[in-house]
């Protein structure tokens, strides 16, 4: 458990990272480095997206599994990695 905390700390202190959120696959927020409202918004929007993505992949190829999802936008990049019970979102602003 301490490892995870460490990893989270490292991620947070990494150059360009704006925030990191850990939540369960139902949308219960476990850890977040952003403020609550934004976190809630992110989780509420990303959680169904993840569900949909997983179902899509499952339908297309039943043995395939989602490892991670990258949402590159103009301003930053959303890195979402999903587990069976948990998912984690990293908001990264890579240097241009």
């Amino acid at each position, binding site marked *: 458990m301490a490892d995870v905390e460490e990893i989270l700390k490292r991620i947070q202190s990494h150059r360009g990272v704006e925030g990191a959120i850990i939540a369960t696959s139902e949308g219960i927020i476990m850890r977040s480095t952003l403020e609550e409202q934004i976190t809630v918004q992110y989780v509420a929007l990303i959680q169904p997206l993840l569900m949909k993505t997983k179902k899509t992949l499952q339908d297309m190829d039943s043995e395939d599994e989602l490892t991670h999802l990258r949402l590159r936008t103009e301003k930053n990049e959303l890195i979402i990695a999903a587990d069976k019970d948990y998912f984690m979102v990293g908001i*990264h602003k890579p240097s241009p």
Partner: protein
Amino acid sequence: MPVYNNKAAAHGRKASNVHKVPGAKLPKAPIKKKDEEEAVDVPDGLDEWSHLKATVKPSNQLELSEAELKEEITRILTANNPHAPQNIVRYSFKERSYKPTSVVDHLAVHFVLEGSLLHKDSDEARRLRIRDGLPKEDAPMENEAESDENHIETPATPVEDGGEGEEAGEEDRPDSVASKPDKKEAKCTNQFNFSERASQTHNNPSRDRSCQTEPPPRITFSVAANQWEIYDAYMEELQKQEKNKEKKKTTLLKKNNKTSKKKMTLMETQSDNIAKVGKVSKIIERMINQNTMDDIAQDFKYYEDPSDEYRDQEGTLLPLWTFQYGIARNLSVTALCWNNKYQDLFAVGLGSYNFSKQEGGMFLLYSLKNSAFPECIYYTTLGVQCLDIHPQHSYLVAVGFYDGCVAVYNLKEKEPHPVYKSTAKTGKHTDPVWQVRWQNDDMDNHHIFYSVSSDGRVVSWTLVKNELISTDVIRLSVNGAVTDGPNSAQLSSISHGTSFDFHKQIDNLFLVGTEEGKIHKCSKTYSSQFLETYDAHSMPVDAVKWNHFHPKIFISCSSDWTVKIWDHTISTPMFTFDLNAAVGDVSWSPYSSTVFAAVTTDRKVHVFDLSINKHEAICQQTVVARKKTRLTHIEFNPISPIIIVGDDQGNVTSLKISPNLRKKPKSKKGHELPKGSEAEVAKMDKLLSLLREPELSTI
């Protein structure tokens, strides 16, 4: 009365008979009679009746017996309206059924005439008089009925502000009155004296009052139901049922267990269970690193130095990631090893070459995917001098320490302790272990590894259950192998081994390099003597490596600034290279038999390709910036064109090899490309033969 009644009845009947049957047997005369009868009805009734007693019976007359005839029928005159309905039924909502009304209105209006007489003192009359301008008191004006209507109307119009209404009404009236005298004969527009009364009520201004609350938090729950979902659900149900069956069978026994389990689960749920996120968080970390170092990742995969086309035969090394771990800054990299199974994983051993400063050590596992932080960290109390990852079981790592201990770590286990460790009892070395190597499992399928140390012993260690069993393979000595004599004082000096390498194909054969600069060729089976000795260097042999392809060639490097290539059948080196600085390590490339790389203490990496240039390096590059760092080790990645270089600051730099350095033998047109190892061997042979020919020729 009855008589009279009867008479009347009879008369009625007769009259009716006469009425009913006009064209009957009676001739015309009776009609006149009828008239007469009617005219002289009452007085002559008796006579008439007696006269006509037994005459006519019409055909449809009711036949009655005499008794019945005499029966007295009472006829009552009532005020009831015979036409009034007697069975009016009204629906009662209270009782939800039709109920007959008992009271029925028996009023029958026969004639209505509405009169037009007005009382002369009434309002109406007065008004009419005024209208006509007549002083007459009795002004028979028109319709009293109109006054009725007006009266009906006035109470009907709602008058709240009576004053207003009255005024309006009166206004109307004066108007009508005024107009009337003028247009006496003209059409009366308001002949009914109709005046509208209306009033404006004061409307309270309406105001909307509303209250907005925060909407209750909503979660959209949606599940896409496909066949997988259904299948999963069924499987879960099945499992539950099975569990229930099991529970029923063993409820009594497991009571205690259950309570303890409950406690356990409680504990787990209380702690945040963030540990499960471990895998996911690692991925995220890697991704973020990849993002930040996107260029490097791209270079690693795709960049091929274009300038290589212009540089005729030279190549370059493109620096990629640098792996640093903060705490390791004081330590130098003492060992590097790539993992065979996961080719992006490599192990770094950290310790110190400084005799006086031994501060403990560690070994780290890095992945190329995450250059910011090692995947695994193992701290050791002693400096790590060497390590090797088992080629098949890549979770086993053999480590040799500065104090002569060897240990085996199992990477799968999370404990930071080695699985096996050698102690003084089990025959650990007395001097630093310079190299460890895994070998093939022995006959009993136990894992074996070998170690060489400065105490002059090459020891093989077998992993048997929980222990390490050591077997001395050979003892190195200056003059040859030492045999233990019972009495002989063993003054023969022990030669200190610094490196060794096992032959790739021939299992028994191995080479040992010593501090004296000699290389001994030995066999595992033949422990008392060396097969051959080469006088290689003037200083300790830092590394000895067999060629990956060619079975006869090996390379050695030393602090005496030289790198030498040997054919093990020949006691003099085939090639000698002088690198102008102490050579820390040398390594053959896994893709070509003629390419090798060496690192020197002046921060340079030298890459040689013998098929291109036999005398000089095709690449000499300074790899590290800081002037005081010395490069200590170098390793080629088995698959990707990368080399990792360790230095004495604890950093590992990864470099990409440019295409010029990885040239494969060109195939002649028409020939098929030969397979890898054979080609390499052939290449090498060609080289060697070229070498030897001039020698022969000179001789």
